[in-house]
């Protein structure tokens, strides 16, 4: 017979709730969360901003990508309490030609990776580092798409980015 603790034990204390204010899509949102609540769960479960998706909760799929002060971050590996005062943009706050390009190029099927792809694409375009199609593919490779809409996603981004679509 063997006894097993199934996963690593968390401390049995539940911590103390923290009152925080997040700036999301230009709005101040107050919420009280435990210090270990991820930004992703804060958005989805506490603020009903369900556009940001959870595909792995481990930083492995990119579905939870949001913009934080204009930079793309993985919200499942970010604690909500870390982002007090930061300007967070989720898919609900994005208004960008890339969205229409995704529709035109049929750059999604189930749509579950789409918010992450779009936020990531907007962040990547702002970074301005990717020049060629190959570089765009590289720099978008943290965002998985199980439906296999990869080619159309890159087409849509190149369409908006313009030029160098070799």
């Amino acid at each position, binding site marked *: *017979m*063997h*006894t*097993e*603790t*199934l*996963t690593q*034990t*968390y401390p*049995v204390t*539940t911590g103390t709730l923290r009152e925080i204010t997040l700036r999301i899509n230009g709005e101040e949102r107050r919420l009280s969360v*435990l210090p270990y*609540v991820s930004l992703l*769960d804060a958005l989805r*479960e506490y603020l*009903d901003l*369900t*556009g*940001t*998706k*959870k*595909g*792995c*909760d*481990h930083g*492995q*799929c990119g*579905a939870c990508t949001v913009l934080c002060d204009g930079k793309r971050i993985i919200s499942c590996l970010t604690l909500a309490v870390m982002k007090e005062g930061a300007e967070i943009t*989720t*898919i*609900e706050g*994005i208004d960008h030609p890339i*969205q*229409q390009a*995704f*529709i035109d190029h*049929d750059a*999604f*099927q*189930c*749509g*579950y*990776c*789409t*918010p992450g792809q779009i936020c990531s694409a907007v962040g990547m375009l702002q970074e301005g580092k990717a020049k060629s199609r*190959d570089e*765009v*593919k590289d720099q*978008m*490779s943290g965002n*998985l*798409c*199980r*439906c*296999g*809409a*990869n080619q*159309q*996603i*890159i087409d849509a981004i190149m369409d908006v980015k313009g030029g160098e679509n070799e």
Partner: protein
Amino acid sequence: MAQIGQPISRLEGKLKVTGAAKYSGEYNVPDLLYGYVVNSSVTKGKIVTIHTGDAEALTGVVKVFTHLNRPGTAWFDMQYSDMDAPPGAPFRPLHNEEIKFNGQPIALVVAETFEAARQGASMIRVDYQESAFETDLKKHLDAAREPKKGMATMLKPPPPKPTGDFEKAYAEAAFKASAEFTHGTEHHNPMELFTTTTLYDGKGKLTIYDKTQGTINCQLYVGNVFGLHFKNVRVVSPFVGGAFGSGLRPQYQLFLSVMAALDLKRHVRVTLDRSQMFTFGHRPQTVQYTRFGATAGGKITALNHRSVAETSQFEDYTENVANWSPMIYPAGNTLLEQKLVPLDVNSPTDMRAPGGCTGLHAIEATMDELSYKLKIDPLELRLINYSTFNTAENKPYSSKQLKECYLQGAEQFGWSKRSAEPRSMRKGHKLVGYGMATGIWDAMQLPARAEAKITKDGKLHVKSAVTDIGVGTLTVMTQIAADEFGLPMEDVVFSYGDSKLPFAPIQGGSFTTATVGTAIVFASKALKKKLLKIAKSSNPGFKDAEPEELVFKDGLMLYKEHSVTLLELVAANKDKPVRTTNLGYPHALKLRKYSRAVHSASFVEVEVDEELGSVKVTRALTAVAAGRIINPKTARSQVLGGMVWSISKALMEETILDANLGKYMNQNLAEYHIPVHADINELDVLFVKEEDKVINELGIKGVGEVGLVAMPPAIANAIYHATGKRINQFPIHFDKLIDL
């Protein structure tokens, strides 16, 4: 303008690019409880003690469910059988102390917050009595036996009986090729985690937001298992974040969410985490053997294909791996066989192109091998053995434009630039190879119901319980309905993804468009009759009209020089909507004389690094003959998706099982490799024209699987052409190619 055939963008596109599309885990209601599942860490044995005290003491935890305190559920196996259940006894979550496979759900922690439920789950300790287990297929090939037959076998008939004398024909064949093929386990891994939100309304009625490929399948399951009247169970799945077969059967989070909601009389959401996505259905590990014989001229005379796949100890899951070769290549002597080995794993489940993408690899790689032996171009060898007759069923195909796939595909791809010898093409230190293969998938159709109704604003409303797992069902059904009445897309509303709508079977097997599309045609026909009846009583011009003589265009019903608007017809019906619900079904009698299949041919170019053995699919083309294509844009995406899956299957994805532990070792998306954007280069799809007047009203076949049958072997064949190495084990990793 006809809507069918137009590349119309997905109607739900706006919702998906703005984050407004709501998936089943996104219905947030006040006082929602969260459930987190605890899974067995051993592979086989018994739970001796399960220590739940720590978790129960945790602030926020409401209840811990285990086999000891779960509410009673139905007694009989039958009541747990769903539309896709293989023969056997379906798995019952938390049924008793017995552990049948690693990762089996053994407890559900329900709490006021997600965090408390998760933490509670981590605090459950279990004493197990372990027993010996077997999970290694290769070790138990001797134990292979015939699969049991049952309901699900109807859609997957066993291989046809032997014909001629295979052994003799093979012994006498001028040229032969034979090989063994090995495929590992794969998990569907849709991007959305499996999740169910059960809303408890206080009067015993449940509204269940579930991630599924069949709302009615889940409704019936919940009704049967929990002894609820079907009317009190509504399953809703408007958006499904991918499924690929994993949602064909009700998964355990549905059971657990409903169980907790009924017991606690509260709303409960249960979401699996990514590692738990590896604890239910999967594509089974499979070993195959082929022996093909041919004349010196390349005519195939003998086909032998055997497969041995794993299943669980409690259900006989089968998929058709070994049926396909005589459906493609007519040969007088065939010997086909499919067997199973029950192991201590969960039951496999259909996963995109189940059986087909496994079997076609073996068939098409063996054909490739034969072509080199014969010194006949691989494409030429397919043409030599071309037939529009299905020797497996002794029937002609209702339509088969595969030859056009071969010819147009080869032309567009530039197949003629291939030099015959392996290792004869290169680009610097990269070995270049071209490979091709044939694809086939059944063109099935099942019965379904649909409602069609015209309302007083002149809009057409069409309804079906069918889901849209991302394949474009909403858009395609709207197109079909619009054309029935000559309406623009804006005037048609298609409602779906809800068990209270008219019956549709599970969404899978590439049969949805034909199935629900035909139901819409039938319902429209009946609605037209009704409209004509109204016209006859209100408009003398229509007195002698027959339904077939009517023309519908721009919101008008026309008969000779007479016309009436749909608006006027509803007004004449005292403003009451004109409505019909009808069953659409395949024409069994007419279809009996034909075989039905969708075909494809894939052409692939690879580059293999001479030193590192790394493989890059630089470009690929799949030519498809799938009858009438309702929407070339969404259909193309379906095939492209299948092509990305092909790259994944041939080169990347595999769930690695440690047979010493009986456990999958890479239960996460960092170690379960699927292609990223950088892995995808030039992919192209070509739909060849194919008219099918027999198959159904619309001449539709379906494209969900066909993108994933031809291309995996085409990749393997291209690697052989590039390197001279024949690797018959998927995925082909660089280690198998490294000392070129």
